[in-house]
């Protein structure tokens, strides 16, 4: 196993953890965090697989895609957070934050 595939497997593990959490958790903030963990995992996989030949420069195309992806992920997170905040403040809205105990340990 090379260093690149080790990093890629770490990214894959992050993706798996995030994917499980985004479906299982009820709390909206945790869902947003889980999507971010998933995204970080995907970025790590892309960057790691672009740098497989040790003594050559990394493939710039996946790096540019990850750079684009990070910016899009940041803006999507901001939109999600403002939506969560808006729903939380709405009267009559369901706030799963009060039922945190239902989420698994």
């Amino acid at each position, binding site marked *: *196993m*090379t260093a*690149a*595939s080790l990093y*890629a*497997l770490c990214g*894959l*593990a992050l*993706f*798996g953890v995030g*994917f*499980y959490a985004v*479906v*299982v958790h009820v709390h909206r903030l945790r869902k947003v965090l889980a999507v971010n963990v998933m995204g970080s995992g995907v970025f790590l*996989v892309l960057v790691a*697989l*672009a740098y*497989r*030949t040790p003594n*050559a*420069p*990394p*493939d*710039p*195309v*996946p*790096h*540019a*895609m990850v*750079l*684009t992806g*990070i*910016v*899009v992920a*940041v*803006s*999507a997170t*901001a*939109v999600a957070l*403002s*939506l969560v*905040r*808006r729903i939380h*403040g709405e009267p009559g809205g369901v706030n799963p934050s009060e039922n945190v105990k239902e989420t*698994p340990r």
Partner: protein
Amino acid sequence: MSSVTGRVVRRCFALMVLMLVGGIGWTILSLPTEWNGLSDHVAARLDESGARNPVTAVLLSFRGYDTLLEIGVLLLAALAVRSVAADRNQTDTSIVEPPGLVLMGLLRLVAPLIVLVAGYLLWVGGHAPGGAFQAGAVLASLVVLVLLCDPRLLPRIPNWLERLLLSLGLFVFIGVGLSVMAFHGALLQYPPGQAKWLILVVEAACTLSIAAVLAALFAGGRIASLDGLESRTQKEEGP
């Protein structure tokens, strides 16, 4: 849903995720260990791109439309946050304590350095790691820092200027992309000799817009938060 069925469903889902991760992991391990990907193609045509850093060349020249759409996504996100968070997220600045001597001193020391670093990152992006996104993020950190210290320190900019800042990057990018069509007939296909300064113009405009968008995302849609505060107090005073 009873807790027992919930647990069974969660276990089944965890198993499915594990199978998915195992499958992708096996694929990753079975990939060839040495692979250059598209680096050779990029290196072969780097001279035409107008940038010596391969990542910048890919971002703004070879796959320029990606970056163009990305600026569009940023603007869209800022607009979405602006409309969703409409004057609900404003902090009440009357209860904010003025920053202490140490914090103000640090801010005075760091603020010009941040601007300098942002400018350096923008310029260095042509031939080394750096570029519009990094510079924009650094510049946005200055606004975030000021917002955290004391929102009243931010200059009150008129609404049209804020909108212009948010959309400047996209407009300049589209304008440059369309105007080079007049010479070569393809969107974002820079004329060979002019690519470097065209990319620099696009990157400079994008830096300002990215900084403005990121700061607006942090501040809940509006950078000039005092304007929002004013409109809110007026609304609350009304019937």
